[in-house]
């Protein structure tokens, strides 16, 4: 039995079964996800033993469709399968009272199958197909509660933004295949020179769309309109990860010029979206902004030439962010809202959930010995070792600082004050899923050295450069994280008091100064950023409107011009036909006369051609 097929087909066949049977969707979904997980784990175990697997399917002539299990793809497949399974466990509880479980689980599994195909794809054409499939299924999932106001437009927006960026992938794939003469990803990675720069930039565009990088980050926050398990799955470990995975897989090909652009895009994103997260008043939207910010950090690592660091952070982030989302889901059920104001003190009602949430938050901020600490360190070390240390290091540190800031703010709001919560059903399932993910978030760091050893021959880049003192990245990262946490914890307290007593008149000059110097400008920048993105969206919309206008114009032209022409042509043809019939009078002498005249004309024509030629 081929394990690649198991990893992909198990969720897919579960989808089909759910749609056919329309019964027991949750059980079937769990079963499908679990079997898929075993397939992925088997693949990972095999690659540890040095075995690689490949399936070649007939595709275009000379360009077969390939599925390959290398250490990298097997690891990603396992990551997707693990998160999928745990989120599925959680979803059993979360969707307990929803009437449309069949549609939910079927789509979720379809997404999982598509994502598995994407990470295991060994050729560009299959990857492109899977890329489109996750786009489609994410659209269906974000728009799951399509009757709620705003949900449909959020889904459409997510789809359109990622779709337009996907054009980059299409052109990039075209360039790569045309250049290498093969659609095999491994072969095309030997591309160099101009095509590599162009393809790299275009791949970056595609990755920016899927991984919600500035200026294309807004869709991710709006996509929070979907159910929380969807957010946990799509927006932490899978859909948005596709962009980063694309860049990590193609990293060996990317020339230095492209790497710098990638690093700068990542840096700008991590700061901008970090600020947005800080100013956000909705928990899920804050987490979404934070996702963009963390993917910005990964892009910094890719830009620094150390995709390994990006991969480690991708893995750690997947576990951490899904835990955070799942915790947020419980809070959401508890207070029927995701607004931070409504969620004040909800942590006290659910101390166990809050404990898990807090662990994940600290992991994200980068507190040892949680997993995020190691991966952030790797990124800072990467930035330190890069040729562009001046550009990348400040971005990386700012990103870390902001992470600490908004996570602390969230924890503080969720813990302080008291509020009334309503009982939450399905808590056991949700707790189980959350527990599993938090556990991963905590202990994954221990697995990193092993993963590095496994992947080193594949990514072919050493993680730590020998010329860096061992503890510099740790110290830098930790101080940034702690600074962020402290700021995040204390400043909002001040801000909450602010409306009661104007902060300028208080004695906390330093804190007030911080508030004045950092928070206000940060919020202002955040608002500016929001305005900027509004503007960007307005321009996107305006372009859309222009297109529609043009379309209408063309259609009108069609109606009056081309269609009119066709109609008059048809009418003319029918008239001619009627004329042809009147020739057929039924009077034989007349018909014979016509035949005679026509033959005479033909004879004349013959003699003319005789003379001419």
């Amino acid at each position, binding site marked *: 039995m081929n394990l690649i097929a198991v990893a992909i087909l198990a969720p897919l066949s579960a989808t089909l079964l759910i749609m056919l049977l329309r019964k027991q969707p949750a059980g079937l979904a769990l079963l499908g996800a679990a079997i898929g997980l075993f397939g992925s784990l088997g693949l990972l175990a095999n690659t540890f033993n040095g075995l690689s697997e490949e399936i070649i399917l007939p595709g275009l002539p000379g360009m077969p469709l390939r599925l390959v299990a290398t250490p990298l793809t097997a690891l990603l497949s396992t990551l997707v399968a693990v998160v999928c399974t745990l989120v599925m466990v959680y979803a059993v509880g979360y969707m307990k009272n929803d009437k449309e479980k069949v549609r939910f689980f079927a789509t979720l599994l379809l997404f999982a199958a598509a994502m598995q195909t994407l990470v295991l794809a060994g050729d560009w054409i299959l990857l492109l197909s899977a890329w489109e499939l996750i786009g489609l299924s994410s659209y269906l999932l974000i728009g799951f509660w399509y009757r709620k106001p705003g949900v449909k437009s959020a889904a459409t927006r997510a789809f359109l933004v990622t779709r337009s960026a996907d054009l980059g992938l299409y052109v990039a794939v075209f360039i790569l295949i045309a250049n290498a003469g093969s659609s095999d990803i491994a072969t095309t990675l030997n591309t160099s020179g101009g095509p590599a720069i162009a393809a790299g930039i275009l791949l970056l565009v595609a990755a920016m769309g899927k991984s919600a990088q500035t200026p294309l980050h807004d869709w991710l926050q709006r996509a929070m309109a979907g159910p929380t398990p969807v957010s946990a799955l799509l927006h932490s470990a899978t859909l948005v990860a596709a962009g980063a995975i694309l860049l990590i897989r193609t990293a060996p090909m990317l020339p230095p010029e492209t790497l710098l652009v990638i690093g700068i895009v990542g840096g700008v994103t991590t700061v901008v979206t970090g600020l947005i997260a800080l100013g956000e008043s909705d928990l899920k939207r804050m987490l979404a902004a934070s996702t963009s910010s963390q993917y910005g950090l990964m892009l910094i690592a890719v830009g620094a030439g150390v995709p390994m660091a990006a991969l480690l952070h991708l893995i750690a982030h997947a576990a951490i962010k899904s835990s955070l989302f799942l915790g947020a889901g419980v809070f959401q059920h508890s207070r029927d809202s995701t607004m931070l104001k409504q969620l004040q003190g909800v942590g006290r009602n659910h101390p166990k959930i809050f404990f898990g949430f807090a662990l994940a938050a600290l992991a994200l901020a980068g507190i040892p010995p949680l997993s995020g600490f190691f991966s952030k360190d790797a990124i800072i070390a990467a930035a330190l070792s890069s040729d562009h240390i001046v550009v990348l290091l400040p971005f990386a540190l700012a990103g870390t600082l902001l992470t600490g800031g908004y996570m602390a703010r969230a924890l503080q709001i969720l813990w302080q004050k008291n509020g009334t919560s309503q009982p939450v059903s399905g808590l056991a399932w949700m707790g189980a899923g959350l527990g599993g993910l938090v556990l991963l978030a905590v202990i994954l760091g221990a697995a990193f050295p092993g993963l590095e050893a496994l992947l080193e021959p594949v990514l072919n880049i050493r993680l730590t450069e020998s010329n860096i003192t061992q503890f510099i990245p740790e110290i830098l990262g930790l101080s940034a994280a702690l600074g962020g946490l402290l700021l995040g914890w204390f400043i909002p307290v001040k801000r909450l008091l602010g409306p009661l007593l104007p902060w300028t008149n208080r004695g906390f000059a330093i804190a007030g100064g911080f508030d004045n110097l950092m928070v206000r400008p940060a919020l202002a920048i955040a608002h500016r950023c929001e305005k900027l993105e509004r503007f960007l969206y307005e321009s996107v919309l305006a372009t859309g409107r222009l297109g529609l206008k043009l379309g209408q114009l063309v259609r009108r032209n069609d109606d009056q011009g081309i269609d009119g022409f066709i109609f008059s042509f048809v009418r003319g043809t029918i008239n001619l036909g009627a004329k042809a019939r009147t020739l057929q009078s039924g009077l*034989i002498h007349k018909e014979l006369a016509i035949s005679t005249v026509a*033959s005479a004309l*033909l004879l004349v024509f013959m003699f003319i051609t005789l003379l001419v030629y």
Partner: protein
Amino acid sequence: MERDLTLLIPEIIILLTVVFALVAEMLRLPRIALTVCIFGLLLATVQTLPMLGADTSVFGGTFRIDTLSVWAKLILLPATVLSLLLARAELAGTDREGTVYVLVCLVSLASVLLAGVGDTMVLVLGILLSGLGSFALVAYPRNDFATEAAMKFFVFASVTTSVMIFGLSYWFGGSGSTLLSELSRLESSPSVAVIGLMAVIIGLGYKASLVPFHFWAPDAYEGAPVSIAAYLSVVPKIGAILAFAQVVRDIPMITNWPLIIAVVAVLTMTYGYLAALVQRNVVRLLAYSSVAQAGYFLLGVVAVGASPLALQSLIVFSAAYAAMNLGAFAMVMLIGRTIETFKGVGREKPLLAVAMVIFLLSLVGIPPLAGFVGKFLLFGAAIEAGFLWLTVVAILNSVLSLAVYLRIMVPMYQQSSRNGELSTTESTPFITTVWIIALLFTIGIGVSAQLLLGNIN
């Protein structure tokens, strides 16, 4: 002499068949006459098979046994058998039913002769023989319509045939021989060659119902029994077209005959479809459609000598045309003669409707049906012969033809306007057999054209 007779065995078998069938008819045994005819024709077909690949002639070059004439027998004789089955279904029990079978066999013999013509006298003989039988067949119902149609047919045939014989005398005078193979002697006297060519165009043009010599066809088809119309639109027409191909092979190029025939082809295709566009009677519509299809055949005739595809394309399209046209006429027999009767057939008799749609789509030339393969080869032959413009006109006409055939297809899937059951003719096993065989060939030739082509060379 013995060799000549051996090579003529199929023709001799048909002749004997006619004699035996006539005897049976005189004894008033129409079923025996039919059986004799069918077995005779099938026997002749089987006897033709060993001659595949032959390229010779008999009786001093007056009759050719070559690719065209052998395949003509292989296509026309089975097509005749199918026509006989249709005729039996339509005319069973009428007075002197057996004469129909006899005449049909005679006309087929004439058509087969025409397809192997090697001498102007055989050409005249074939046209006269085929004409005489056809008049009688059209007049068979003995009502006013049929008689008038037959009369018209007869007058038309007399005028055109006599003009042809007159024109052919120029060729005889110029070359000193009635053999087609001696026509190359006319190289030095092009005006004589041109007058003879005109005579052939008039004579064969009437037989193949090319514009402007087609006037008899719609009336004759409408007046005749539907099965006879089906037969006349297939067998004598293909015979005449193949005779055309045999004749033009030997005409000196100095006359520019391909250009002349190309002009006739354009006239025929365009006029045929334009006139078909306004018909309300399905038989007349199919009559004009068969006029237009003759124009497509001419694409292959134009390319004779210039393209190796020419003969292949003519043969494949002959087979395709025979299958799809017979099938379409069989459907008319089952459903009715006017477009009105086709309304709602799609709901009441879905199988018949699907079959009819397939025949009509094949007539348009939609892949993967037989008509498509045939037209595709014809277009290829014409392009190879340097007649790209003619191909473009033919393709434009195909678009027009879709409009024509849609006039039958669309009503079939509309709400029926009549109350109650479809008043179709009793679906006899004969008609069913015919349309199923025609359907198999319409699809089969389309799918396995490669196989067929391999055998023609």
